[in-house]
Structures are given as structure tokens and as C-alpha cells.
């Protein structure tokens, strides 16, 4: 059996579990962005008007699409994977079969990315309905970028998961990494409003690059340095994957 089909076996296991509760999870996928975009996009948008020269609803919708990809993949790769690994011993069971650590980590990563894509597609539809999408000809390209963003944050979440002694540890990661990215990477306002040194720092964070790719695809803003952004997200994904595999080996194969 090839590496690809082994990874897909892990992905498929998670998909089957998700499918049982898909209805409930879809309510959240559609409901949350709907409330966010309605509350902030319309409410705040009415007051702000335009941001970076586009309606605030369009500005915000593209930002929320990115932050949701980050949040969804991060939750899956931390809390859910941790549960499967340390509480349900699903990984232990898999390791007694031809699956190995790289297959399992890759399968989990692909699944977390898939969940980002599912959540992102829901937001995409809601944003479209609420007038958050300006350029329909390029908008559809945002979805593969959402998947890439999901893979990127999945790999980083998996690294944290492999280091984590308990569920409490994830709070550090959320407070020190995920929430700052949510607030400082251009989801709600352009990072050019930040002081120069903070901007430099934000440029090193993956969410900034996801926003810089996805916002121009959904709106009339020009797309710049696309390959740089794709490169950064890919590099984080690959580096995170390699590190997560190493840490998982160290943790589980004793």
C-alpha cells in the first residue's frame, strides 16, 4: 500500500466520525460566520463605511475566511488530535497496523485542513449572500488557499499537540499565538495601520500571508507577490509536518 492511501485511511476514519455529526457541525459552520458578518460587517460597517477603499463587509468577510481556517484547523489539530492520541488510543491502534507515524500525522493534517475547507466554504457562501464578495471571477480560487491555510495551521497545531502534556497546555498556544494572529494579521483592519516594528513581526506570521492572498481574490484589491505568500504558507506547512513527525516519534515510540 502506498503512503498516499495510508494517509487517506486516517483521513477517512475522521471523515466517517464527522459525518455522523455533520448536521450539528454544519449549523455552527454556517451560523457563526453569519452572525459575525451580520453583526460586525453590517453593524460596524455602517459606521466605518470603507476600509482600504472597499466596503467593510467585503474587507471583513475575507479576513474572517482566513481566521476561520486558522481556528478550525488549530482546534482539530490540538484538542481533537490530543483526544484521539491520549484518551481514545486511536493512534496506538493504528500503529499496530501497516500505518506509521508519518501516515497518521499526514492524515490528521489533511483532515484538519479539510475541516477548514468545509468551514471556509460555508463562510464563502454566507459572504456571497451578504455581499462580501466583490470579484466572482477570482473568488473561487480562495478555496484552495483556505485549504492551504488550514494545512499550515494544522501542521503547527500538531507540533503543539505533540509537545503538550495536557489539554491546559493548549491555552498557552491560543493566548500567545492564535489570538494575537487573529487580532494583528489584518483580519479586521490593514496591518499598515500598525507601528513599523509590529508590521515587520506580523509579516513573519502565516495568517498575514493567508489574508494577503485571499482578500485580493475576493475583492477588488490588487493581488501582489502571490508566490511569496503561497511559499510562506507552504514552508510553514512542510516545516510543521516534519517537526510534528519527529516529535510524535519521540513521544510515542519509546
Amino acid at each position, binding site marked *: 500500500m502506498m503512503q498516499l492511501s495510508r494517509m487517506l485511511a486516517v483521513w477517512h476514519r475522521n471523515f466517517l466520525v464527522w459525518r455522523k455529526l455533520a448536521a450539528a457541525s454544519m449549523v455552527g459552520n454556517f451560523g457563526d460566520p453569519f452572525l459575525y458578518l451580520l453583526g460586525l460587517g453590517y453593524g460596524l460597517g455602517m459606521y466605518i463605511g470603507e476600509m482600504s477603499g472597499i466596503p467593510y463587509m467585503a474587507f471583513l468577510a475575507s479576513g474572517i475566511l482566513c481566521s476561520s481556517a486558522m481556528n478550525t484547523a488549530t482546534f482539530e489539530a490540538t484538542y481533537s488530535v490530543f483526544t484521539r492520541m491520549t484518551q481514545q488510543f486511536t493512534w496506538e491502534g493504528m500503529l499496530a497496523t501497516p500505518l506509521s507515524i508519518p501516515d497518521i500525522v499526514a492524515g490528521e493534517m489533511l483532515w484538519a485542513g479539510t475541516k477548514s475547507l468545509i468551514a471556509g466554504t460555508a463562510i464563502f457562501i454566507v459572504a456571497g449572500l451578504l455581499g462580501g464578495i466583490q470579484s466572482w471571477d477570482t473568488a473561487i480560487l480562495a478555496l484552495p488557499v483556505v485549504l492551504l491555510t488550514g494545512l499550515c495551521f494544522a501542521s503547527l497545531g500538531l507540533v503543539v499537540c505533540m509537545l503538550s502534556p495536557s489539554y491546559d497546555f493548549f491555552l498557552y498556544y491560543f493566548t500567545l499565538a492564535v489570538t494575537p494572529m487573529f487580532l494583528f494579521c489584518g483580519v479586521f483592519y490593514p496591518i499598515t495601520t500598525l507601528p513599523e516594528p509590529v508590521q515587520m513581526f506580523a509579516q513573519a506570521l502565516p495568517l498575514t500571508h493567508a489574508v494577503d492572498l485571499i482578500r485580493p481574490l475576493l475583492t477588488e484589491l490588487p493581488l501582489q507577490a502571490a508566490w511569496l505568500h503561497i511559499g510562506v504558507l507552504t514552508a510553514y506547512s512542510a516545516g510543521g509536518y516534519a517537526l510534528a513527525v519527529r516529535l510524535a516519534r519521540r513521544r510515542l515510540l*519509546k
Partner: protein
Amino acid sequence: MTNPVVSAKGLYKRFGEHVAVSGVDFDIPAGICFGILGPNGAGKTTLIRMLLGMAPLTSGEYTLFGESAGVAEQRQRVGVVPQMDNLDPDFSVSENLFVYASYFGLSRLQMQGKVNELLSFSELSGRSSSQVANLSGGMRRRLMIARALVNDPDVVVLDEPTTGLDPQARHIIWQRLRELKRSGKTLILTTHYMEEAEQLCDDIMILNQGRIIARGSPRILIGKHVEPEVVELRGEVSQPDVDALLGELNIDYEHVGDSWFCYLDDARPLLERCTGFPKLNFVHRPANLEDVFLKLTGRELSE
């Protein structure tokens, strides 16, 4: 002679300073039921984990199917019933089998007939759509055995498959394991039940603190390590009473808990004396594997 399925030479495993497996050598020929016995912490599970690639060796050689153990592809031909229950709680009984089979690259379509066959083999046909959380301990263990067979393995590794089960449940599992052996599979079994080892195993290795302290068939082990007859003494007696009772008979005995196990070639002189002690309960029986185990692994708790 055919090549052994598993072979260990000078196998060591250390966890930090702690030596869990201390230079063991053994071969397991194909088609037998091989028992690994030993007190808690003896290194049984560690031997199994190393065989499956779940724990790296510290040193030595360990082969499975003639190649270094621990390669993912080898596990295509191995079934595992782990010591710790890891059934997938998110799935029903039959889904557990289908999903586990998918890890071996076996599709739902390919498995349809096989899953039904495994459900009836493990007497779970009526429970196929139950959630695993609702199964009894015996059913869960039977499902774990069924799950270990989805890939029709040549080698089945069972780490304490009957611990915590009632006698009926245990007898059902024994019967199934005998069927597996008849079908030509090699079984590697760890257990704390000597009766189980005696009934199922063709060859036994007794471990203590990571070392092999005895090896052979149940019959050979009993013949070699203990006298054929055993008198168990217990009741309102203490060590001085026992010393007085045994007197000059020069009997080899083990004191475990509140019992004294006396090993003899001929029990008659001791039995005669026992009848003179009113507060003493005594039982006369042939020696069994448990006697070997107690004698070799010592009377005290090893941990």
C-alpha cells in the same frame, strides 16, 4: 527445519536507567502457540511492542518473518490484541472492523463477507450495530480479537486477552484461540493465568525482570522444575506450626501469602501427619504450571 517466525538474539531494552528486557534469546517456530509468562513488569508487553515497531530496541537483534522487526509492511501479516483496550469509541461494532480493515488497505466492499464471518466467529453477530461503549468486557475483548483478524494475519499477538473476564468469557476465547491455531496461525500469547497457558501454549517462556528464567512446553516445565505432587497447607497455622509439621521430612516448600505449597515425590507421609493437625486445611493435588511459576519467580511481589 523451517525458519522461525520470530527470533531474538541478545535483545536489550532500557527505559532511561531501567532495564526492561535484559539480553534475551529465543525463537518462535511457525504454527505454534507461544506463551510469554512473567510477573507484572517482567517485560512481556515491551517484547511485543518492540516486535511491532512501537518501541525501538536498545541493542540486539529481533527479527519477524526473517527480517528486522518493526517494519510497517510486516504488520500487514500480523494481528494484534493489545493489553489496553483501544477499540474506536466513535464507531459501532461492525464499523470498528471495517475502519480497522481500511488501515490495511482493505475496502468496505472486500470486507463485507469477512466482517460477517468475524462477527459470528466472535459471537457478536447480534451486536453488529451496538456502540462499543455498550459492550460488556467479554464482548469488547472478543471484538478486539475479531479486529486483530481483519487482515487474515499469519501471526496473532495477544497481550493478556482474558484478563478481567469471567470464566465463561474466558472459555469462549480459549476455544476461539484453539481454532485459530488449528487454522495454521502462529499465536504469541501473554497471560497471568497459568491454566490458560497450560491449556493453550505449546511452548512457554517465563520472564522475570527482563530475563528468561525457564523455557519449554508446560509438561516439560512441570517435570523439570517441581516435584509431581503438591500439598497446600493453610488455616490457623503459622510458620512454627508448619516447621513442626514438616519436621525432619525435608520437604521443599514455598510460602505465598497465607499458604504453604509443599512439593513432594510422595505425599503420603505428610498427609498422614496433616490429619493430626485439627486446625489445618490441606489440599493434595498434582503439580501444575502455577507451581512452576511461583517457584521460579519467587514468593514475594516483584514490584
